[in-house]
């Protein structure tokens, strides 16, 4: 089973100069867990709820006073869409991350979370 078979194709991209409050609004409205931050210089970044809590709220920073690119985690950790579930699991374990983005060439086409990987692994055992 490959990551493209379990990935979520709904990815939200945000501008790097958006405030963190606007990012929170997007995450809440779209019921998603992370957003991809478009490159300000060259690298894409990612903001998860964990980034918002640890890098902004826990430090007492007002989410209206800080930009998305300032708390985004970089570089984006990605796998090719044909990567096996087992290889993706090894990558998230090694990198200590909870989701990994899926690329088709240079384009980001999806995201897989730990839950998706677990589901994919179990489906693979049955098919």
């Amino acid at each position, binding site marked *: 089973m490959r990551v493209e078979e379990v990935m979520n*194709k*709904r990815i939200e991209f945000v501008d790097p100069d958006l405030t963190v409050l606007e990012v929170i609004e997007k995450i809440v409205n779209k019921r998603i867990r992370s957003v991809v931050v478009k490159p300000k210089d060259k690298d894409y970044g990612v903001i998860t709820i964990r980034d918002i809590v640890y890098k902004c709220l826990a430090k007492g920073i007002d989410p209206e006073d800080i930009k998305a690119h300032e708390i985004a985690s970089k570089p984006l950790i990605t796998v090719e869409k044909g990567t096996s579930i087992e290889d993706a699991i090894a990558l998230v374990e090694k990198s200590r991350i909870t989701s990994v983005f899926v690329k088709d060439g240079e384009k980001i086409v999806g995201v897989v979370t730990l839950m998706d990987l677990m*589901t994919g692994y*179990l*489906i693979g055992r*049955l*098919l």
Partner: protein
Amino acid sequence: MKAEERVIGNIEQMLNLALSASELLQKAVLSRDKSLLEEVSRLERDGDDLRRSTAREIYKGAFLPYLRSNILRLVEDVDDILNTTDKAGKYCRKLEKFEFLNLGGEVERILELNVILCRIISKNFIEFFRNPEKLSEAVIVVRMLEKEADDLKHSVLESLRRKNFDFWEGLFTFNFIESIEEISDVIEDTMDTLQVVVLGL
């Protein structure tokens, strides 16, 4: 061949029909080829024949009396997968536009989930009787995938709310989305019934 083996064989055939029907529905929607949906209806009728002949075998005495009601319920659940797939196909035939295909792949994913669910149950059906632990594992996977289909349905309906439809197109689109999600519901029910049957054996 024993009556019990014929019953199990018939249910396996019905599950294979359900898999073919879900694959055809997926193909028909993705290619917008409504002609394929005639075949889904034919598969549903074949399923009805198998359901009737299986019920006759049970009536004639296949399985011990205390098992018969649950076996018959399993047959009806599997038949329901085919009926619901056919119902979705019938709503699809009434659609003029396929507005839901421009929503970021959510409807496509529900259709894919239905195919995966049918494949899991049809491919492992006989194995589930030999290895109940595998069945327990499959029940968990089916529940996870059903929940995903349910979440996707609500997300699709929320997105469709913002679009303008004429009444009938909107009604058939809503019914179609409800029906394709219902397929995963019925498969989950089938797995629950199958667990009861395997436990009884």
